[in-house]
């Protein structure tokens, strides 16, 4: 039966190959749109690992070495603070300490912490660890001890930074579960000291103390709900004489219901405490809205375009199939005259269509799989990839069958006598 249908399809190869190409490209377009959608939905359903409600970011700039704010971890390590003199550094630490005290005085403020990079901000820091010769990449943030409480990070193993890390021979770090699994599998990561790569931009510095893992947190997705979960590491910053540069962000947790009036008072107070500094203030919830809009906009635009393309393809396909049926009036009439039921005709038209779609889809799947096999888009997991592929295949079949319904109904209505009358 199928063999016979393939033969029928082959006999009209000129027309069918065009339909097949159209289905192939439709699949590619649909797959791209659905992949974006599934990727975002999948990310959205996972916890982000921190609480953004009632957390405000206060951007701090000492107007001196702003150029370093978006530098990578390595370059930051190697660049000395611009003025360079230890006195300038000391006074900076003192100012920052004063700022923290000033903010803590407000009764509406519950927690005060410092971070080099704020969640939902555009800056990122990256680094790598040596994993058996292959560098394992991860995102980094350098934060103060209160950061965990201010953002409600969940420590699942070990502990968060504390005073007991002061003056130790190691640099304490906290990593997320994903990274713990990638570095150590199922064994306990606490107390381990992973090495940095021997060469490359992230190579180990000679005078650098080893990094010891003191704790593991559930996760920290800095870019929020729609970003994929990635390896992440926290390093510790203390506001003391060794502090090389001003931390860029103060993250404070405020009581629910705090308003812009508090923002104004906070900013005025900060400006009075440090005349040479500049400050920005913004609730994380606001930054989250902006970040999510930026992330969603291209996917929504892409989805809309794909949807319009699909409508266009659906209409075009209906037209073409309709035309095909009109052309094959005689053939169908003959079959009816020889005793084929309406159902058989229905089956034939739709069956042929399914075969053409299957060929188109097969090529599409082969090509699309290459991207995953060759690791072109490696930030998307195999699960999301396969799921998007299945959804697209189902949708394309549904689309083609839907387009074939009306034309094949027309075919069943062909009266044998009328059809044969042509000859």
């Amino acid at each position, binding site marked *: 039966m199928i063999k016979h249908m393939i033969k029928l399809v082959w006999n009209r190869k000129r027309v069918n190959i065009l339909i097949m190409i159209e289905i192939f490209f439709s699949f590619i377009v649909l797959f791209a749109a659905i992949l974006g959608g599934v990727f975002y939905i999948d990310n959205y359903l996972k916890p982000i690992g921190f609480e953004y409600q009632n957390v405000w970011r206060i951007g701090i700039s*000492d107007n001196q070495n702003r150029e370093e704010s978006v*530098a990578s971890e390595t370059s930051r390590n190697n660049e000395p603070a611009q003025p360079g003199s230890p006195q300038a550094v000391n006074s900076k630490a003192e100012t920052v300490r004063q700022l923290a005290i000033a903010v803590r005085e407000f009764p509406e403020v519950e927690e005060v912490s410092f971070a080099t990079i704020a969640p939902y901000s555009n800056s990122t820091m990256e680094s790598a660890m040596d994993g058996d010769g292959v560098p394992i990449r991860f995102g980094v943030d350098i934060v103060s001890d209160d950061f965990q409480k201010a953002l409600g990070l969940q420590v699942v193993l070990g502990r968060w930074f504390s005073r007991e890390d002061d003056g130790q021979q190691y640099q304490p770090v906290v990593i997320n579960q994903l990274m713990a699994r990638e570095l150590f599998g199922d064994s306990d990561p606490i107390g381990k000291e992973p090495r940095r790569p021997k060469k490359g931009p992230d190579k180990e510095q000679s005078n650098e103390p080893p990094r010891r893992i003191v704790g593991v947190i559930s996760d920290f997705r800095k870019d929020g709900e729609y970003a994929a979960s990635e390896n992440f590491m926290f390093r510790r910053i203390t506001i003391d004489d060794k502090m090389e540069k001003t931390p860029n962000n103060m993250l404070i947790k405020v009581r629910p219901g705090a308003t812009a009036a508090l923002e104004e008072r906070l900013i005025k107070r900060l400006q009075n405490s440090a005349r040479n500094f500049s400050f920005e203030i913004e609730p994380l919830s606001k930054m989250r809205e902006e970040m999510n809009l930026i992330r969603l906009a291209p996917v929504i635009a892409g989805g809309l375009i794909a949807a319009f*393309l699909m409508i*266009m393809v659906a209409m075009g396909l209906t037209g073409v199939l309709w035309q095909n049926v009109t052309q094959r009036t005689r053939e169908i009439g003959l079959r009816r005259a020889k005793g084929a039921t309406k159902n058989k005709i229905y089956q034939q038209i739709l069956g042929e269509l399914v075969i053409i779609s299957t060929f188109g889809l097969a090529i599409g799947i082969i090509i699309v799989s290459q991207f995953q096999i060759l690791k072109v888009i490696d930030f998307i997991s195999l699960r999301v990839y396969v799921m998007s592929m299945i959804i697209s295949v189902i949708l394309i079949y549904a689309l083609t069958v839907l387009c074939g319904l009306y034309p094949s109904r027309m075919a069943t209505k062909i009266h044998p006598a009328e059809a044969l009358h042509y000859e």
Partner: protein
Amino acid sequence: MLKNYIKISLKVLTRRKFFTFISLFAISFTLIILMVVTAVFDHIFGPHSPETKTDRALGVYAVKYEGPDAISTGPAGYGFLNRYVKTLPGVENVTIFSVFETTYTFREGEKVKLFLKRTDGNFWDIFDFRFLEGAPYTADDEKNGNFVAVINQATRDKVFGGESAVGKTLEIDGQRFRIAGVVANVPFLRFASFSDVWAPISTNKTASYRNQNLRGEFQALVLAKNKSDLPAIREEFKTRLANVEFPDTKQFNKAFGGLDTTFEQASRNIIPSSNFESQPGKLLAVIVLFMVLFMILPTINLVNINVSRILERAGEIGVRKAFGASSWTLVGQFIVENVVLTLLGGLLGLIGSLLVLDAISRSNLIPYSEFQMNYRIFTYGLTLALFFGVFSGVYPAWKMSRLHPVDALKGGVR
């Protein structure tokens, strides 16, 4: 003859309305997308107020430094620009300005977010801002560190309730500025000129920016006397980059960058290159590739529909062939018909894109952006429509012209 073809094609269009509708939908939709994308590009890169002299202006928007252990990429420092760009020979004018930063002002307990850009006095000579009231600050204001500022219309509306603002005081980031002028809003995507508030560089909180010999938060724009001077100026800057004096060669010892148009700047940021080259050709190729990929599906769809439509007219073709029409005549006829159809679709697409652009502008997704249609975009759209029409008509026409008259008269094809 042509008149006849057009007459026939219009007749054919009204005969099978469903097919006509599908074709027009496909063509106009495709053109809407392509024209909207073009309009956005034109908005970002085309000459628009206040950046009207784009044909003879080049900027230093970002630089890259490399050392044995470190890399640093981003806007240059004031000291660097002052030394290596400001002094370029044979140019008409040079301006140095900061990358805009976020600041706030408070009005009756409400927070108003304002972008602040600090510039020199030349800034106002190089860019053609449209002043609604007052005047720009001058090079003297910059030299003397006067706290004067220019604001845009939106800021005047938000902070001063739309009333005349010149002479009034605006407090941002703990500094008080006297307002010297109000300009029309500048679109957000024109990042060289865009801001809400412009103030002299010397009003910076500390003078440390003067010592930024490498990286910082400043950009510069060079205006040449003639377009023909540009290559020489580019060359000169390249030579200067190769001879940059580094304060600490253990930290950084190589500088990369160049004088860019805004499109070259975009390519520098988007297309990765080890030497921080700008590769506008590659960026253009990527964009064209995406557009072609996007156009494939509508084109195949149109070809498919055209093949179907044409087979329906086998009888007509048979008669014409039998009476001696050559294949070429028939191909010509069909292509004319198709072009008429696509031009019709192009017209619908034009109306559609006007509506879409208006909707995007109104949505305020991108602050102060007015996406407009102009003759550049229109010509581009028209060319695309024609290309579309000819391209999607060739295969069906060729197929039709090969039809044997006998088969055709019988009304069928094998």
